[in-house]
């Protein structure tokens, strides 16, 4: 497509040239040697100046910049690599410390627990002993009381009944006969009054 346009336009431009050349004499300005010397002179002057300035001042600077950037990047990469290794080592160290302190803490916990358990057991034993002692003592006292209680009750019963009879009847009653009755009653109903 572009080729076709290209050729067509060249064709058209030739038509155009014919007209133009018919109207204006001359032809291609490129082939007019009037300013050739001037163009050559200015070309050498400008291109030469540009070449000298570029090669002496600007291109070395650019190449220097590129080199220094390259070396700096390499240096930075090296430094980064080193720091990475350092940090990895530190991380390892840190992990080890953590692991160690963890096991230490576990040990400490276990030891403390065992000690506490031992203490508790010892104290419990002592307390149990004391409690047993107290219970025994109390049981002994109760036993003593239990043994002595019926006699006292009998005595109180005999005295009360003799006084009661004296007031009711008006004369003294033989205390031995009353105690015999109380004993008899106690034998028959003692269980009912004193539990056991």
């Amino acid at each position, binding site marked *: 497509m572009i080729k076709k346009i290209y050729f067509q336009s060249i064709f058209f*431009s030739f038509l155009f040239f014919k007209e133009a050349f018919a109207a204006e004499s001359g032809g291609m300005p490129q082939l007019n040697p009037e300013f050739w010397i001037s163009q*050559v002179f200015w070309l050498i002057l400008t291109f030469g100046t540009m070449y000298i300035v*570029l090669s002496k001042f600007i291109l070395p600077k650019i190449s220097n910049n590129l080199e220094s950037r390259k070396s700096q990047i390499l240096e930075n990469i090296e430094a980064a690599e080193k720091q990475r290794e350092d940090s990895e080592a530190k991380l390892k160290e840190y992990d080890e410390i953590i692991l160690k302190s963890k096991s230490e803490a576990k040990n400490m916990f276990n030891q403390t627990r065992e000690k506490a358990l031992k203490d508790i057991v010892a104290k419990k034993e002592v307390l149990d002993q004391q409690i047993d002692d107290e219970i025994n003592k109390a049981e002994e006292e109760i036993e003593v009381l239990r043994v002595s209680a019926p006699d006292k009750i009998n005595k109180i019963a005999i005295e009360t009944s003799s006084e009661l009879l004296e007031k009711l009847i008006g004369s003294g009653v033989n205390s031995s006969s009353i105690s015999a009755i109380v004993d008899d009653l106690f034998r028959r109903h003692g269980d009912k009054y004193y539990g056991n």
Partner: protein
Amino acid sequence: MAANPMSQFDVYRIGPEIKVGAFDISFTNASLFMITSTVSILLIFNLGSKRNSVLPNKMQLLAELSYTFVAKMISDTAGSKAKPYFAFIFSLFMFVLFCNMFGMIPYTFTVTSHIIVTFILATFIFIGVTVIGFIKHGFGYLKLFVPSGVPAVLLPLIVVIEIISYLSRPISLSVRLFANMMAGHTMMKVFGGFVISLGLVGGWLPLSFSVALTGLEILVAFLQAYVFAILTCIYLNDALNLHH
């Protein structure tokens, strides 16, 4: 004047006539655009090389990308021996590129559309390459004209062809650039003239062609600068590393 598509290539004097002896070296519009191109190149690359930060700014990036582009082009075609000629090829590429690109701006003058300019550049390259070749290889450089592995019967013919092709290098190099620039600019002018002559009714078609051609010509402007530089590299390669 505006109707003639060739009038854009006219060279005219700006300011007084300057004569040195019999030679007229007056300042012309061609001189003006040579100076514009070189000054722009120097300004851009000076700005691009001023600061040296690890993270380049736009100008620095432009300068460094151009530098590495040309450096890669040279090392790919002419090898590491061509390093001393880097500055010349870089200047050449940038000069041709900027002259071509400045020519793409309307009402400007295209320096490289003149055969005398491209011919002087090409001749300088031709002579320089030949001198480098004789300095590096002595008369052994003439082996360039005798390719290896050719039957002895064909040798006289081949040598003549090689010599003619070698001697036509400056012509082919200069005419390629000059003709491309001239043809492109003439064509754009012709289409521009069609837009005017066909007016509001029929002018839209040549206008769209004109737009497309502008894009094409920008591509050609870059491509021709690249071709000019890379052919210089190839000639330099012949002179530095004798392959035949």
